[in-house]
């Protein structure tokens, strides 16, 4: 099989994604797991670049790597004892985890196979920047309502998060 540089880099990122994801679920140390989750999320951003989804790639890094993972690390550091916790997999977890991930995998597979012409993506083709397109779609009728609902959802999430965590602060 001939590999051009693009494909080589793509497979490198794919390997990095899967490899670090495996490390996340198998490793015992919780900070190492968080660290390799960072690698996973970062290389997924790399894969987005190959899909011409530049805005999504940047968002992936800003929100997931720069936001959610920091939150997870903070959570780990806040909870005394959890830093030296050795994560262990139990049989019940293995079963239910397997069921859930197989279901999600099946769902994804059906989406992939139902997408017309999914195998004919030209990764080298240059397209117009996606940020503008996303902006237009949000602002025009199609996704206007979902967008505003998303803002309400975020507000509710903010208030909820503040409410729950405030209770914890007070308990201390």
């Amino acid at each position, binding site marked *: 099989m001939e590999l051009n540089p693009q494909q080589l880099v793509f497979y490198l990122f794919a390997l990095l994604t899967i490899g670090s994801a495996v490390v996340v679920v198998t490793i015992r140390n919780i900070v190492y797991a968080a660290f390799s989750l960072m690698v996973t999320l970062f290389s997924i951003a790399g894969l987005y670049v190959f899909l011409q989804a530049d805005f999504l790639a*940047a968002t992936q890094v800003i929100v997931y790597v720069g936001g959610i993972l920091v939150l997870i690390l903070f959570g780990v550091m806040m909870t005394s004892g959890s830093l030296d916790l050795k994560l262990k997999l139990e049989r019940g977890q293995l079963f239910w985890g397997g069921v859930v991930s197989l279901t999600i995998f099946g769902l994804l597979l059906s989406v992939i196979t139902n997408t017309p012409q999914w195998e004919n993506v030209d990764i080298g083709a240059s397209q117009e*920047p996606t*940020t503008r397109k996303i902006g237009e779609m949000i602002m025009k009728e199609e996704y206007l309502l979902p967008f505003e609902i998303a803002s309400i959802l975020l507000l509710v999430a903010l208030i909820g998060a503040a409410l729950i965590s405030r209770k914890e602060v007070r308990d201390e």
Partner: protein
Amino acid sequence: MDLPLNVLIISSLIKIVVVVHILLIGVMGMILAERKVSGWIQDRHGPNRVGPWGILQPIADGIKFLLKEDLVPDHVDKPVYLLAPAIILVPALVTCGVVPFGSSITVSGYEIPLQIADINIGVLYILAITSLGVYGVVLGAWASNNKYSLLGGLRSSAQMISYELTLGLSLIGVLILSSSLSLREIAIQQGSYPWTWNFLIHFPAFLAFTTAAFAETNRLPFDLAEAEQELVGGYHTEYSSMKFAMYFMAEYMHMIVGSAVAVTLFFGGWQFFGLETVGGPFWSGLISVGIFFVKTAFFLFVFIWVRWTLPRFRYDQLMNLGWKFLLPITLASIVVTATVWAFTQSKVLVGILNVVVACIVVAIVSTTLVMTREPEPVEDRGILSFTKESSS
């Protein structure tokens, strides 16, 4: 892409190597400049022993860092301890990949843009890479397994994420007027006359951006992470030799890159009136780089100046500044820019109203803070014992 592929590849390799070297030389220059300027501000000599006027001081420092014993204490978590300085230095380096440091240069018929990667989401790229900086701090602090490190790392990371919001929001006003996320495009649109540059149109946002850039570098007055009197060295207490040097370099690189981004977004990048047409297609490119460097150097001087002028904030003051002043100011600036642009499309009006509204916001916020200030505790001991009893 008009250029043949091999020219593209060779030119970008050269550009990358040159930029890395310029950054390193810049860091060395900054180390010297910082000590010289601080000496000047404090009315003393500064380094003057190594070489003429002490200009070889940074080289001596570098050699010392290289030769020092690299201590890896027994109590650290070795893999993470080793990776943390790299995680803070590499993003600092890579951020400048999208910064255009000049117009373009014509070499043997090929016009080569003076920028490593002109990606069309440049502004978002900078935000994304900046958000990685937190990891070097958090992981380094955790891996060091030292109380000072942990406390410093936690303080610093909370500070960095708080100011990242300001960093992101302050750029949106600029985007509204430029309609582009590409740094080169934003720089070009500002034109070459100082009064058309973005810092006048978005003055409050510019101030907020600069302040946030200060906070991201963890320097005075934002250096609570390494407040010597309280936390020794903060998150790099347990680091020595080259690994400490990497934290050190990262701080200076953040400064240089932050200044370069500020110049690109708010000070018209490499442009200055009257100098575009000087020289041929080769020399005009180099002149544009020179202009860019001069503007960046000015910002770097401001960085040093502020550091040796302002005392350190208290942690609550720092958080108040970020969340209660800068965040509302930048939000107000977005609303003002959008409103004025939707109805009048006058940049002058945007500039004036931005400042007026920012002043109003500051007035309202500070009045609120003064009005709601909590009374000082009267009887310390009695109340303390009271809280203890009731919480148990």
